[in-house]
Structure formats: C-alpha cells, structure tokens
C-alpha cells in the first residue's frame, strides 16, 4: 500500500502516528498552562507555530509587513479565545484556520484583485536577495516567486503549505475545511500549473542565456 493511501486511510480513521501523538501531548501541556495564565507557556506556543503562521499569512498576502501583522493578530485572538478552547481539538488546525481567515480578511480589505502587486513582489525579492549571496540562486528564487504568485489562491495556498511548508495533506484538508481528496486534486492541479509555467520560463531563460 502506498504511503499516500496509508495517509488517506489514517486520515479517514482519524488516527495520528505515535510521534505526532507525543508532540500533541507536549503541546497540550503547554496549552493547559497557557490557559491557566502562564505567559511563558503561551510564548512557547507562539514560538512553536510562529514561522508557519507567518509564512501561511505571507502566502496569502505576499507582503512581509502584513504577514507579520496578521500572524501577530492571530496569536492575540488565539490568546483571547484560549479559555474556551477545548484541548481535545487539534490546536494547529484551529490556529492556522484563524491565521488564514485573518489573512483573507486583510487581503479582502486591501484589494479585491487576485493578482499580487508588482511593487510588493519587488520589495519581497529585494529583501530576500539581501540575504542570498549567490546571484544566480537569488534570480532563480525570484522567478519561482513570480510563477507562484501567478497561480490562483485555491491552488497556490495548498501548494505552498505542502511543498514548501511541509504540511501533510490531511493537515491542509482540515485547515481549508475541504476533503482529503480535494486537497490531493488541488495539489495535482497546482503542481501542473506551476510546472508548465516554470518550464516555459526556464526555457525562455535558457534561450536568453544562449543568445
């Protein structure tokens, strides 16, 4: 049986692996302490999920400042709702749903256009470029970002979450509130769209370098 199929069956049965169970148990301890008002425990929770929360927001907004604001706002909201949070529920799904929803709200407020503002991409690329010494690699990353930004949200978000952030398909399904199969399908479509655009861009780049 393939790993994907095993994953699907486990998802349908709702049974986590033992490593996941241990991690959740540790997280629950911190959440329980955070519910009791321990700021250090809440800090642990923030640190654990910050990076992914930040990039999840960024993948919606393509704006570093707003991504930071969104992730921050999401954690404040989480803290506010923590007293009523049921520890039996999956915390990560709950948190990232809030992050995603806050990000979507921000995006809707910002504009209703699906395309990413070019100045934002340039800003982001410049910021990233500053940390990458290898010029060729930086240019390639720039092209990857541009291709990704051209994908529709419904395909780009699961692709980023899976192939960049490393979330599992079942995590993404819970996060987006769609079925496992829908995520698999969207990932398939997203990868295909990305691959086609990427291949075209790379061939054009190759021709330009050769001429």
């Amino acid at each position, binding site marked *: 049986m393939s790993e994907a199929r095993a994953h699907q069956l486990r998802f349908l049965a709702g049974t986590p692996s033992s490593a996941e169970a241990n991690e959740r148990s540790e997280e629950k301890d911190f959440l329980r302490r955070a519910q009791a008002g321990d700021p250090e425990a809440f*800090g642990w929770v923030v640190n654990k999920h910050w990076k992914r929360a930040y990039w999840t927001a960024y993948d919606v907004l393509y704006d570093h400042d707003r991504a930071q604001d969104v992730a921050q706002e999401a954690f404040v909201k989480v803290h506010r709702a923590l007293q009523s949070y049921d520890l039996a529920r999956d915390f990560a799904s709950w948190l990232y749903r*809030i992050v995603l929803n806050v990000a979507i709200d921000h995006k809707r407020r910002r504009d209703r256009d699906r395309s990413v503002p070019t100045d934002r991409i340039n800003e982001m690329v410049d910021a990233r470029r500053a940390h990458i010494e290898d010029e060729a690699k930086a240019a390639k*990353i720039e092209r990857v970002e541009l291709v990704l930004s051209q994908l529709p949200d419904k395909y780009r978000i699961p692709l980023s979450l899976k192939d960049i952030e490393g979330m599992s398909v079942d995590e993404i399904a819970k996060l*987006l509130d769609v079925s496992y*199969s829908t995520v698999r399908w969207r990932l398939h479509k997203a990868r295909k769209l990305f691959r086609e655009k990427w291949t075209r861009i790379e061939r054009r780049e190759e021709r330009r370098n050769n001429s």
Partner: protein
Amino acid sequence: MRRFQLESKLHDYLANELDASARAEVEALLARDESARALLDEMRAADDALSLLRDRQAPEAPLEAIQRQIAAGVFAGRPEPELHAWGTRFYKRVAAAAVLTCGVSLGLLGHNVWSNGSTSVETPVSDRAPVVHDIRKLPEMGVDVDGNIVDTYEFLNRNRNNLATFTPTDSVTPSLEIDPFRRR
C-alpha cells in the same frame, strides 16, 4: 495510462511514496517511454525550484509585542473571524442550487415520461441528455475502487461508451463505484 494518472504516479514516485511493486511499474514505464522520462524531468525541475523556498526564514516571533497587545486588549472588540475557507460558502450555495436544479429537472423528466406514456426502455439514448447535464454538477474529482484520485470529467470521458448505453438500472454513479466523494 491516462495523463492524470501518469502525473500522479510520477509525483508519488518522485516523493518516494510508492510501494515496491508500484515503483517497479513506474521504472519499467520510464525505461520504455521517452515522453514519461521527459515529464519526470520537468516535474523534478519544478520540485527543485520549489525546494528553494523551503529554507525561507521568518523574522523572530514578536513575543513582547504580542504580550503588549494582549494586555491592552487589542482586537478585543472585534468578532472572531468566521471560518471561511476559500469558496466554501460559495460552493455550498452552488451545490444547493445544483440539487434544486436536479430535482426540478428530474421532476419535469418524470412528468414528461409519464404524460407521454413511454417507458425507459423505449426512450432513445439521445433523449437522456439531462442525465449528462446532471453529471456536470458532480464534484471535480472522486476516488475510484482502487483508491486512486480521479478527475470526474476525465473518468466520464473515458467511460463515454457506458454513458451512451446508460439505462436507469446502470446509472453513472454506480459505474464510478463510489462512495467516491468523501466529504467530511
């Protein structure tokens, strides 16, 4: 093998998610099919490109700012964000409209058959077009008997001959052999 299945298999192959026999099957295909090899190369290149973003670093978590906002009660006046994953509400509305349309269509069809006094056996295949129309309201994909994710339209295209010989006792849904659209 259909393009969709080929791509899924090759992706699982690249991700090392195939069992030994499926892997051997893909390797045999790659050995004899140049276009499959070319596709695999493109997939690998795209995957490598995406992997460049995997080590992206986020800024430090602004713990102090978060604690300050918590203490100041920032966002306290705002309602909790609703859980609105993309299009969920939109698709629910579309689904509701589709169910309503199907119901009305089937009602009219039934009324038409009864009022004409004809039976399903005598009804020409071409007169059963509304069934195909209903199929278009199915979700975009499903799972076949082998557990493969299948594109509904691709599946229906592949089984077009079955649709042409559609009879009321051999409907399309059983031919998909589902519980296909696993919704939570």
